[in-house]
């Protein structure tokens, strides 16, 4: 689906991404993990065409992404930033409908088919009852569902998410991750930066561990989440066991201050 070939990106002086190459197959759920400042968000922005790498190639279904018109790209790849700087008091319905812009275009109107899609998504995400509420009045968990709903109305085959659950409690985190997994199971490729290693381990089909702008490790959760990898990249002591329920690797942090006694 996506083929990334040797990309480098820099905001100015130093390279934030160094010679990154990897591939994503259709239907995968790729989790990008790594410490703060390792280039995770930058990599997502490059894939979303918000930032342009100065070297390398990115192919989407064998087509160089910069050859695709931006409005067409929006029908194939949708992106949700980690923060939406919220301004106007759009209602939930208005906000979700904005995801149909690539189809209606500049001068177009929402057609019956567009409205049906919005309607289905509102239903699917259980936010139909809030449709007339203002988005900023909702709780963080509800807001995140509205934001993801907007991404889904774009009907892209790849969705890119930047830390979709970073500010949510454990209950809401699992709820949102379940929603994303369901989207993934319906055939949509998902690429997501995740801060929480254990969520990444449970939900993703493939992981990419970044360190200082380079790929440190790549593969299944079992291959990537080992105590050697995590200790080296995150510079902290950890234990990695298996979650008895799912069999996936589970990371336990160990406070260094307790070890020194």
């Amino acid at each position: 689906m996506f083929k990334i070939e040797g990309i480098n990106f820099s905001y100015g002086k130093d390279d934030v991404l160094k010679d990154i190459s990897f591939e994503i197959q259709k239907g995968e759920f790729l989790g990008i993990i790594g410490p703060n400042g390792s280039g995770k968000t930058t990599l997502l922005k490059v894939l979303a065409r918000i930032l342009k790498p100065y070297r390398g190639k990115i192919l989407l279904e064998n087509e160089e992404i910069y050859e695709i018109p931006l409005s067409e790209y929006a029908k194939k790849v949708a992106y949700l930033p980690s923060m939406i700087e919220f301004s106007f008091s759009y209602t939930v319905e208005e906000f979700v409908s904005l995801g149909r812009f690539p189809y209606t275009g500049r001068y177009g109107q929402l057609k019956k088919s567009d409205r049906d899609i919005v309607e289905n998504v509102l239903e699917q995400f259980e936010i139909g009852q809030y449709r007339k509420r203002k988005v900023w009045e909702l709780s963080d968990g509800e807001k995140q569902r509205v934001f993801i709903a907007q991404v889904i109305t774009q009907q892209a085959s790849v969705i890119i998410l930047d830390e979709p659950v970073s500010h949510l409690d454990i209950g809401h985190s699992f709820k949102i991750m379940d929603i994303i997994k369901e989207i993934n199971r319906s055939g949509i490729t998902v690429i997501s930066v995740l801060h929480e290693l254990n969520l990444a381990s449970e939900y993703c089909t493939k992981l990419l561990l970044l360190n200082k702008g380079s790929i440190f490790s790549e593969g299944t959760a079992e291959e990537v989440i080992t105590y050697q990898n995590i200790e080296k990249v995150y510079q902290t002591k950890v234990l990695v066991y298996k979650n008895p329920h799912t069999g996936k690797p589970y990371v336990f942090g160990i406070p260094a201050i307790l070890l020194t006694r």
Partner: protein
Amino acid sequence: MKTKYTAVFLFLVLSVIAGLSLGTEFYTLPRLFSLSPTDKSILLNIRAPRVLAAFIIGAGLSITGAVLQAILRNPLAESYTLGISGGASLGIAMGVIIGKTALIPSFAFIGALLSIFIVLLASIKKRFSNPTVILLGVALNFLFSSLVLFIMAVAKNEQFQSTMFRLIGDISYFPYQILYTGIIVITILSIFLILSGKVYDVISIGDEKAVSIGINIETEKKLALFICCIIVGLCVSLGGIIGFVGLVIPHITRFFFGPSHRRALTVNFITGGGFLILTDTLARTIIRPLEIPVGVITGFCGGLFFLAILLKGRYTEMW
């Protein structure tokens, strides 16, 4: 929604009637039906053009205010607070020195473009927050206004001084020659802005989001700013610096009609026009037979409104 639209329409009709019938001469309803030739001449040649001028200036300032707030995602943005009007007035002063009356709107446009260029360049380079961008705009306005005042003080030419007086924000001396050009150009550009409303909807939720929804953000912002500068240039050429119309009207409109831009911009155009007809009528009747510049009244209302937004603190929630 239908009642709201009716209310907007009635507001416009009432303000037009008020604008035509009130002033140094009062026309009561019975008198309107038995007009003498002089009365007809006053209505057709003096009142009607002035109502038209007030309408198009108000409409232009409001619609640009709403667009600027959306694309800069700044609730305090408008042509006045961003220094665009100030730049336009300096351009006009330059144009008057050179002495080509017909070219004055072009000078105003260049001045407007210059100041928005300075404001944006500085705020991008220095990563200014929203209120700081406005501070910069206000500072530029002061700078440009004092330059205009300087030019006015140095020039002793009488006609020149009347032009300068107009720049304070007064529709009573609007230049008749450019009224119809102004109406046509502002209307056409406003229709374009209204039709592009969806683009501003998407831009208003953030640059990154807008790119991923397929909008070429650089091009769209430049285009919108360019159009705003043309409109503001014409408005300032017609009526000078009239502050805060572009701030008050978009906020009130958004409160009643929501933020969706196709609807909001259409309503802004009409209510902004009606609002300025009313305030201009007030300006020429409040201490009859003396007339005060309309900018005094809009400045007073708008200043209070601006303070209210600032003091409310969490001003983002006003949107």
